[in-house]
């Protein structure tokens, strides 16, 4: 099924790219989205089955694939609005959609990859494809961010590959002749702990550029800043999920061994450092998209803490990842609308949004309630569970330090958001030129409602999927 989907996606993307026909550019992405949703449902019905020797529909990949399907629909919608407002040519529109469809295909391949080498190839493919979209506005800043993203991610992914080579060596010592995750998990207790430690460090460092985690988080921040808002939404959510999944696959292997506590300590350190860096950078930030990017760094740090805490933390980490994806995507879609009013992302230029666009303002307010993990946000539930896991598993100092840092982050973000919403409208702003259809905000309300609903009253199949995804860790 996946091979058919990949072939279908490549053909559709090529047709969009080559034909550059207005009607086809409208129809083909819709066909692609339908196919992606069909794949997600197919994966749900065929859960725990192999699709080929390289792919498998496991619980985590099914969950993340559904997140990708949902966010693909909203991202295509906001991309359509973005392209319409920028009055781009059919040629530019075709290039944009073709690159976006190929990016989604590469991410789908990464989610379902059962073979670590195939996962690596898919991650590298996402880097190359997203660079086209980051550079879309062709500004000097876009060039800088694209170069940094492409180069640092390539070097990072090369280091992750070294880790995979070491993993293959120690697996080879135990008679394993493929890089299938399930086979590696089965022989993990027999592997050399030193090589596994080196593997994990290299993979964590390498894929931290994709996950937006310390130490290679800076390139993702720059990419968020310059990419079109719908693409920023993708980089900050589904693409970060790719990075998480790549690290999680190796984590599930090392979790079967005696070095698990060492690995968890590494994750706790990385988590705390990520949140610390986010706290420091947020004090200096003067650009809304950069502020959201550093907020993503903070949230990925919290996810790392969940894995590092263990037990209940595993469940909470995946919950947090999903809720963060929906909330952060809403924020980036909304900042795209804010830009239509102020023609700027700089904090000093943007204020009084509630007066200008009450529905959009309400959406911003809800987004911030959600992203700051204030009840009834689902992120409150996941963060609460992560802190519970930290206290229960005897990491009270980590919990207290992180709580202190989060207090500073909440204050900083709240200060900027109150400025955005309730300060006076800048003098000289051309109010008559402001037109954003209130219906454009529906997607944000739907995503935020999902975060609240899944947090307060999660359906059984949803919690079952998360529990199954982490069953190999417990």
């Amino acid at each position, binding site marked *: 099924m996946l091979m058919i989907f990949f072939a279908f996606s490549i053909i559709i993307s090529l047709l969009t790219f080559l034909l550059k026909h207005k009607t086809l550019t409208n129809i083909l992405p819709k066909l692609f989205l339908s196919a992606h949703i069909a794949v997600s449902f197919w994966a749900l019905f065929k859960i725990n089955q192999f699709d080929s020797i390289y792919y498998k529909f496991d619980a985590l990949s099914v969950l993340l694939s559904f997140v990708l399907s949902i966010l693909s629909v909203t991202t295509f919608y906001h991309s359509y609005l973005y392209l319409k407002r920028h009055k781009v040519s059919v040629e530019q529109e075709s290039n944009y959609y073709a690159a976006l469809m190929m990016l989604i295909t590469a991410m789908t391949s990464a989610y379902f990859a059962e073979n670590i*080498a195939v996962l690596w190839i898919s991650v590298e493919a996402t880097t190359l494809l997203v*660079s086209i979209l980051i550079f879309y506005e062709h500004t*000097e*800043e876009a060039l800088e961010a694209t*170069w940094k993203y492409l180069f640092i991610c390539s070097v990072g992914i090369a280091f992750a*590959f070294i880790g995979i080579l*070491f993993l*293959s*060596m120690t697996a080879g010592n135990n008679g394993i002749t493929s890089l299938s995750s399930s086979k590696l998990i089965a022989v993990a207790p027999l592997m050399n702990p030193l*090589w596994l430690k080196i593997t994990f460090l290299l993979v964590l460092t390498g894929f931290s550029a994709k996950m937006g985690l310390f130490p290679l988080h800076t390139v993702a921040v720059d990419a968020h800043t310059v990419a079109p808002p719908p693409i920023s939404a993708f980089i900050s959510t589904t693409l970060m999920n790719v990075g998480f999944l790549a690290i999680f696959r190796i984590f599930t292997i090392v979790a079967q061994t005696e070095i698990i506590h060492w690995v968890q300590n590494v994750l706790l350190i990385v988590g705390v450092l990520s949140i610390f860096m986010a706290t420091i950078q947020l004090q200096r930030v003067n650009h809304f998209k950069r502020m959201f990017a550093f907020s993503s760094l903070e949230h990925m740090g919290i996810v790392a803490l969940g894995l590092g805490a263990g037990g209940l933390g595993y469940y909470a980490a995946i919950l947090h990842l999903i809720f963060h994806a929906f909330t952060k995507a809403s924020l980036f879609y909304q900042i795209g609308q804010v830009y239509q009013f102020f023609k700027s992302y700089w904090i000093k230029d943007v204020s009084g949004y509630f007066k200008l666009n009450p529905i959009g303002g309400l959406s911003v307010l809800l987004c911030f309630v959600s992203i700051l993990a204030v009840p009834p946000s689902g992120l409150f539930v996941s963060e609460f569970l992560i802190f519970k896991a930290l206290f229960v598993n005897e990491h009270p100092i980590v919990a207290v330090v992180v709580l202190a840092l989060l207090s500073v982050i909440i204050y900083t973000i709240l200060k900027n958001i109150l400025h955005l919403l309730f300060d006076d409208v800048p003098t000289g702003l051309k109010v008559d030129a402001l037109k954003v259809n209130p219906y454009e905000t529906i997607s944000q309300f739907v995503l935020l409602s999902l975060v609240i609903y899944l947090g307060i009253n999660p359906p059984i199949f949803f919690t079952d999927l998360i529990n199954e995804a982490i069953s190999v860790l417990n």
Partner: protein
Amino acid sequence: MTYLFIILYAITLIYFALSERTKKFVWLLAIQGLILFGVVFFSLNKIDIFDFIFILLETIVVKTLVVPWFLNKVRKHNQLKREHEPYVPVFYSIIVVVIILIISFMLSNYLNDSQMHTQYFTIAFTSIIFGGYFIMIHKNLFSNVVGYLIIENGIFLLSLAVGSIMPIMVNLAILLDVFMGVLILGLFINRVGDTFKSVKTEHLSKLKD
């Protein structure tokens, strides 16, 4: 015979440290491609036709011919001749290569795994660390890509050192991925050169808080 190739590879690394001309960097990369072919060809006891074609494709076609040809085009497009004032003088860079080589040798003896080929590991590790060092000491994007390719060559040697178990199709896909990466990086160097009239890294520092 493989020892000869390993020594030759180490010499290319020292030449990288010595050189200041971008043209020489491209030549050295092409020579490394040839050496890698020699290393693989002479280290395999039995070689079937598919493996041979793959190795030929990876080392001779891609690493020795296509990538250097493409880098030369990029170099000419941006009128790059000499790498001005690297952050670290050449003399110190030579000392650094030697130190990395010694540390790699000690490390490979310390790790000494039954599955691992110690000599390959030494030179592979040296190449990877030196590639990182090369990126750090140079001030232009072209040299950064050269550093990235030195790391990639080191990883190629490392896969031999650890007796990689990846099937040929996966290897081929990885090669294509890296190849595409270099092409896209090269295209972006041209774009940076056209926009800023220079490919120095100092032009790429606008994005900050």
